[in-house]
């Protein structure tokens, strides 16, 4: 099957039902996307398909109907995405394991929403679990990133 991830095309020899998460991690070696629960409850596996945030543990390979972007494709240590830069500036991460998913959810929200208010942030970001409870800094980083994106 053909799969486009971070603008690169891949031929994938795998079961149609294999979740995108494990294709990314174990076949393509893109380990920035994390396994946390396997049932779309923690959000650690969040990626974008055509810009929309999805839980990659719940998307079968055969059902991927668009281009996939992972945390590695959003930005890099040398050229971070504005949302990643806000995460760096606010030192959001503690253990950091959920943060790829948090950042992917936030980036998709901001691309759609512009400058979200706290209620919108609550609604969208509550699907991403952080066991270290870095939430105050997540909220601050999202507001900061929204301002950066708005001023371009």
């Amino acid at each position: 099957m053909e799969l486009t991830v971070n603008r690169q095309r891949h031929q994938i020899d795998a079961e149609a039902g294999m979740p995108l998460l494990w294709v990314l991690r174990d076949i393509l070696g893109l380990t920035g996307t994390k396994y946390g629960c396997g049932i779309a409850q923690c959000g650690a596996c969040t990626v974008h398909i055509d810009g929309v945030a999805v839980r990659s543990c719940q998307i079968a390979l055969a059902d991927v109907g668009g281009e996939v972007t992972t945390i590695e494709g959003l930005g890099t240590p040398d050229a971070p995405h504005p949302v990643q830069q806000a995460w760096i500036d606010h030192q959001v991460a503690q253990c950091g394991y959920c943060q790829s998913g948090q950042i992917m959810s936030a980036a998709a929200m901001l691309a759609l929403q512009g400058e979200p208010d706290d209620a919108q942030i609550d609604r969208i970001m509550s699907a991403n679990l952080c066991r270290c409870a870095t939430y105050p800094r997540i909220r601050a980083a999202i507001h900061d990133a929204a301002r950066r994106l708005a001023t371009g």
Partner: protein
Amino acid sequence: MSRAGRIARRGFLVGSVAIAGGVAFGAWRYTRPLPDPFAKGLSPGTDALNPYVLIDASGITLIAPRADKGQGARWIQAALIAEELDIDPAGARIEPGPVSKTYYNTALLQENLPIDPTDTGWLAQTLRAGSDVPARLLGLQITGGSSSVPDGFEKLRSAGAVARETLKQAAAMREGLSRADLRTGDGNVILPDGQRIPYTELAAEAASIVPVQDVVLRAPSQWRILGKPVQRADIVAKSTGTQRYGIDLAFDGMLYASVRAAPAGSSVAKVEAAAAKGMRGVHSIVPIRDGIAVVADNTWRAMQALQAITIDWAFPDLPGDQQAVWDGLTAALDTAQIDSRPREIGDVENALAAGAVIEAEYRVPFLAHAPLEPMNATVRITDSQCEIWTGTQIPDFVVAKVAALTGLGEDSIQVHNQMIGGSFGRRLELDFILQAVQIAQSVPGRPVKMIWSREEDFAHDQPRPAQIARGRGRVANGQIVALDLAIATPSVTASWFGRVWRALPGPDATITAGAGDQPLAIPNYRVTGHRADEVFPVSSWRSVGASGNGFLHGCFLDELFAAADLDPLQGMIDLCSHDVSRRVLNELREISGWTGRAAGQGRGRGVAFCLSFGVPCAQVVDVADTAKGMRITRAFAVADIGTVLDPVNAQAQLSGGMLFGLGHAMNCELTYRDHVPEQTNFHEYQAMRLHQAPEITVRLLENGPLRGLGEPGVPPAAPALANAIFAATGQRIRELPLSRKVRFV
């Protein structure tokens, strides 16, 4: 005590040894009260030098042996060394270092336990004092008990200072100058004429001279890194998906595995695996002790095949339901036998007999650790060697247990400690590592990465134990006259030591920690610990005994303040017998604008205090009872950690600890049915999510001794919240989670 004291007065010395092309600096058997080891001279390879700084032509490596599970330990250890070494820690390699007898003090453990009653040695004293788990563990190279910072504060800075001065001495000898004329900066020795010699060029010469021991540690006013808001070295990687955790490792030829193991105390009765054998990618089905593993060519295929295997468990002929736990705790409270009574002031019985007694029973549930990175370990084993890549807080126990399991010598076992995606105490266990070793034994020579499913994690946690406590108290003339609290719980210390090593005798102070050690001058004050039998294995969970006891004690105290018609914050300030703690309470009143419990219709404020791990921490929680449910609107936390070394991270630890405590208090419990927890994944164990997280104001004070902050933010959160709900609604909730009685937003 002067913070810039000369290290010669300390219980350790710092030396150096030559390594290939360079030099290693470190602490000399720092945990042991030894006479000056340099009288005998240092001979590399035979003496126990724990290296912290390695310098060769390729660069500078800082060794940070305490495991990093998100609390920032790796960075602060590097910063402590770098502060004195005069380098930018962000430019150095930071590694956890190997486990070996000379590196960690495994020998110390083996030589000193079990304790002889007449032994007055350091470890025996520590163990006997048994004040809490961290005290028992400090000498054993374990990460836990919020101990990394206080343990490393002088040791790591001294290693940096000795390295710096020895490098200066090497440069002085080369140039025919005096060491006093030289300076250092950014990894260079700087000559009087401004010429800079990189440390890497001086390493070989530094290895050949006697290390300079006569160093004075810099005063905080001279610090460049410590105490300043700096960017932690792992922040960029953790914001770009490039941080590698144990679960992310990959090796050529690596196989993948997953496991289903029997519930605690059970075993495998029957396995039907035919359907799994032919599934795509399945390499083999491997029986392990009390479980079954599937080895496959990727993780998902291993997990899929496991689901296709039918396993019948042989359950023990013992109770396996939650009710057995509550019954056991009640029975423990009803017996006259006590485990410990750390607080006994005045005459509680007489004081209670003099008037009306206020009585209450409190309960706290089992809680899962459930860090977000599922348990995993990668192992490659041959006839002569075993390599383990995993995140662990107890590397030396890993080595000992794997040696026993495999028959290999301890020197043949290497643990490569990995960055950890959360622990909260879970990585103090060995179960998953020993499983991975057994699986790897079935495919000698090939690396195997074993990953647990989240369901396996919930089914096989050793949780924070459930507890029941009974409080009795009396108030008179607007004062608390008596407080008597009896707490029943199984011993996490005995449970854990029994798994990782062997059971230790003596009372377990964690049974009363956070309740029996509080600095309150109540005239008749008694706290008693009753040890209940362990129905299910239990373990240390962030803040250990204080996690539950903070709630029991903090809520019952609030009941007594209410009965005496006292303001709870003023009441605690008036009762407080510890100056550092009183200043914490006063600061909390200041930053929270506290004027009392009342906060208007449907609103309330709660306050609680707990001194744990040497850190006094006090918190105020504000709630509003809204149409959508109870909402935490604001929260305030103050703690005193003596010296704030990493202000950005310290604030995160305090804020995160408080929210961790609030989330579990609201939403979480683990309940057992038929020998297994009923909660199987995060849909049934919500913890804290963003929409429930209030704005938090935190303040760190520096009046007490230097302490760590990974845990002390947790204990006051649950009682502050329950007390706030009482203030808002008049309802006393005496069991957790609060969601049993209250609907939260």
